[in-house]
């Protein structure tokens, strides 16, 4: 079974801090994704990556950056955290070789910015 592991289930940070959310997958997937989930808005894509050192902006990249130095690891960075970034963050991965492959999700990080 695919395992996507997010480093923290709950995280509390202060406004202005630099925040790192880590995600690791163990199935050698090329694609990795970061979403934020808010009630009534579903999942919104922040950034995704098709390969090591490659990154593409999603629908809501403002205030975020990402890093993919190794295939299995995809990090989301909040450069200067703000209260409107309080949310549930979900990481996902999928293989690139076939179409319509499911995305495999981690269990999420609930981030609170005070």
């Amino acid at each position, binding site marked *: 079974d695919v395992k*996507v592991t997010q480093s923290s289930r709950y995280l509390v940070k202060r406004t202005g801090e630099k925040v790192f959310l880590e995600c690791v997958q163990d199935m050698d997937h090329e*694609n990795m*994704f970061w*979403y934020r989930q808010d009630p*009534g*808005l*579903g*999942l*919104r*894509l922040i950034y*995704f990556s*098709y390969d090591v050192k490659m990154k593409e902006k*999603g629908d809501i990249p403002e205030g975020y950056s990402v890093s993919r130095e190794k295939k299995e690891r995809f990090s989301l960075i909040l450069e200067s955290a703000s209260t409107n970034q309080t949310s549930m963050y*979900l990481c*996902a991965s*999928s293989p*690139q070789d076939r*179409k*319509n*492959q*499911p*995305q495999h*999700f*981690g*269990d*999420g990080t609930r981030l609170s910015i005070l």
Partner: protein
Amino acid sequence: TQLLEQSPQFLSIQEGENLTVYCNSSSVFSSLQWYRQEPGEGPVLLVTVVTGGEVKKLKRLTFQFGDARKDSSLHITAAQTGDTGLYLCAGAIWNTGNQFYFGTGTSLTVIP
């Protein structure tokens, strides 16, 4: 603006009742997936539909992809408490690789 709108946003029903969840868009999708998410966990794939008009069944769950590939529905027969969760549709648009656009979600509660 969300690309995919789901309705209803919240649904609370008695065990044994039937229900339908809708996923609508003005965009055409190459395929559409349905996920279920339980509290404290990430979404898990239920089904993928790829052909306009396609119907797929998963035990008591029936999924349909619209003829024009712009909408989908999920019908649950004789709901059980184990069906409780957040249901999300996600559509893929041609030539966007493996990027899926997620719907707004339907939170289902089945009361015993």
